[in-house]
């Protein structure tokens, strides 16, 4: 009786255009493919002399980063600037104040500055949804990572990287390795891979780093690399944070590296043409051997390039969706 409406429908306009980009979950396959196609053209453009396009000229993009991240912040900033937008960077320190108050108050202050788009990174799962629900109409919200919930732009740049190297998604076996439990990247990747229809998605981790009901997301669980990597086409490594060595999740880094670190030796379990990815920054000697990270099968640097293009694609689509929705509602009120 009390079933909720589709909670991810907030991302789409009435006619199915993207207007917020909060999670890869619940977005139709056609839309994900459009994002990839648009990003493809931006990648090609990135190799040109003129890298800018005027799609977001006159628009203000505010980067609200409640969690520090130079990498992600700079790629979003670059993406916005290549779309000719004006960029506002707000690095907000939440250690001193209660998180909830800061978020709502910050939003109120920002409304007054008339931004057209917020790019949000926050330590609380659901923060991007919260902002999308409370923001003035016609402002687009892009999730740059919320707690453990989602990092949809990272997942999409990973999908783009896979497609540019492997072509079709359908035959691929993809393995995600590492701290799945705490990873918003892994969750977004799993939703995207499922929607795009890969043959198999695997997660490989010790039980302490696996959420208990992860199979329900459509993945097969492995706790060791030999079996988990067999016949795999794409290996997506996750970053292991130092904090996981506390609170009885892992004994130490060297045991993790021995069992789950991607070395040249372990790479041989996978298909001979398997590719290796990592969202960065990499912990050499913890998740991955240097020779693998820098080796011929590694797509890590491509991921970075693709990251800018994917963010450009997502930002321009979301802005376009918001503007067309505003045009529709303006027309409607005029007709009255």
């Amino acid at each position: 009786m009390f079933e909720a409406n589709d909670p991810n429908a907030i991302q789409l306009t009435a006619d199915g255009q993207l207007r917020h980009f909060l999670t890869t979950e619940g977005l139709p396959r056609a839309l994900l493919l459009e994002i990839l196609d648009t990003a493809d053209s931006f990648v090609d453009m990135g190799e040109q002399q003129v890298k800018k396009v005027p799609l977001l000229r006159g628009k203000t993009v505010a980067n609200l980063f409640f969690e520090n991240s130079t990498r992600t912040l700079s790629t979003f900033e670059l993406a916005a600037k290549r779309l000719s937008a004006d960029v506002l960077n707000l690095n907000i320190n939440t250690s001193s104040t209660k998180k909830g108050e800061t978020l709502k108050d910050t939003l109120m202050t920002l409304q007054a500055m008339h931004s057209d788009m917020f790019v949000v990174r926050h330590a609380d799962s659901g923060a991007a949804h919260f902002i999308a629900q409370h923001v003035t109409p016609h402002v687009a919200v892009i999730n740059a990572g919320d707690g453990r919930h989602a990092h949809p732009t990272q997942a999409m740049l990973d999908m783009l990287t896979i497609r540019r190297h492997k072509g079709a998604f359908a035959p691929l076996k993809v393995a995600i390795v590492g701290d799945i439990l705490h990873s918003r990247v892994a969750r977004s990747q799993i939703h995207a891979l499922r929607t795009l229809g890969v043959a198999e998605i695997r997660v490989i981790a010790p039980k302490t780093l696996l959420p208990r009901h992860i199979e329900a997301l459509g993945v097969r669980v492995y706790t060791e690399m030999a079996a988990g990597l067999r016949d795999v086409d794409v290996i997506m490594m996750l970053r292991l944070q130092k904090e996981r060595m506390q609170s009885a999740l892992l004994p130490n880094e060297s045991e993790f590296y021995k069992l789950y670190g991607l070395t040249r030796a372990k790479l041989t379990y996978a298909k001979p043409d398997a590719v290796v990815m990592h969202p960065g920054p990499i912990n050499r000697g913890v998740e991955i051997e240097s020779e693998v990270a820098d080796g011929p099968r590694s797509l890590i640097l491509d991921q970075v390039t693709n990251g800018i293009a994917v963010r450009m694609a997502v930002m321009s689509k979301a802005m376009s969706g918001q503007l067309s929705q505003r045009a529709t509602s303006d027309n409607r009120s005029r007709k009255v």
Partner: protein
Amino acid sequence: MNILISGGRVIDPAQSLDRITDLYVSEGEIRALGEPPQGFQADEVIDARGQIVAPGLVDLCTTLREPGQTRKGTIASETAAAAAGGITTLVVTPDTNPIVETAAVAELIQDRAADIGLARVLPMGALTQGLQGEQLAPLHGLASSGCIAFTNLRRPFGNSQILLRCLEYAATHDLLVVFQAQDAALAANGCMHDDTTSTRLGLNGIPASAETIEVSRCLLLAEQTGVRAHFGQLSCEHSVRLIEAARQRGLQVSADVAIQNLLLTDACVNGFNAAYHLQPPLRSPLDRAGLRQGLVTGTISAICSDHQPHDPIAKQAPFAATEAGMSGLETLLPLSLLLVEQQLLELPQLIAALTLAPARILGLDAGTLQVGSQADICLFDPTAEWCVSEENLRSAGKNTPFLGQTLKGRVSATLMDGRIVFRR
């Protein structure tokens, strides 16, 4: 004041009564059923045709926020809400500020409620000083000052030895201990049930074992000490099985469940709706089924609201940063009636779970319409539909996930001590 409640369907589980008849109230007591007492002159007649006449509801767990957190609610606002919800007796949690660990605070709360006169308020006392789980609170003194039971809420004990001694002391004076069973370490930082939904949402989960481990510990210690024990607001089907097994062994323990856990599941949290941020959390469909079954078999005998009013800002943040709890006094009855509509219980059984059973758990002479008992009465129209809105909620807490929804079943009048404390 002489009041006649006429033509209503009077349901009193204590007497196995369920028939359309008249009820006569005089001087705060129920004088007669059916035929008027000798020389009875009604000062007031309440037309109860088409209505149910039941004992006033007894709510085993509510939070009134006063003293100390009056921006969230006051005894005045919340007892008014209770009266509008047909609830005449409220058992309140000790986590006020200051905590109910001194006679003064216990008496303050009761006096304030008595002055306002809209509902009976029975405080629970803290089991340990400051609810810190280390030192015994003055249980006997608190009991003398009106504390009906003792609890440490969900806060941890320093160790099992301390818990054991608290129970032994309570048993010495035949005091009722209410457990809100949760292992603090397993539940740490959790804000919803640990399952598929929490995994997808990236929210920290509270595994079922956080409750079942503590239920097991408390059952074993209750058995060892012989203390009168009650388990409040169960959320897991496994907990129900543990309690059922204990009862079969002969242990006299009781249990209640909050109405929301009988109707909702963790899937409600999808979309990060903070209105569903609750403690104990909403759990899986299997847990919901187990709780419902427990109610049918009698392992769980009572339903409560677990009312926790909040100011708006408490729910306006990303999910994990919001405060847990929902405002439930005024929705308790219509939501409970759904159990009848869903054919889980018959109406008299439901009413028993809301009145007689909680009264028995507390050892109170209440929850009945027997002649001579205090006239605490709830009149409601089980078919009346109404839309839950901020305007029509009397509680200071508008934090209910049912805002904007249409519910069926509405209180038309409430009497406490033979006085009309609410009339629509």
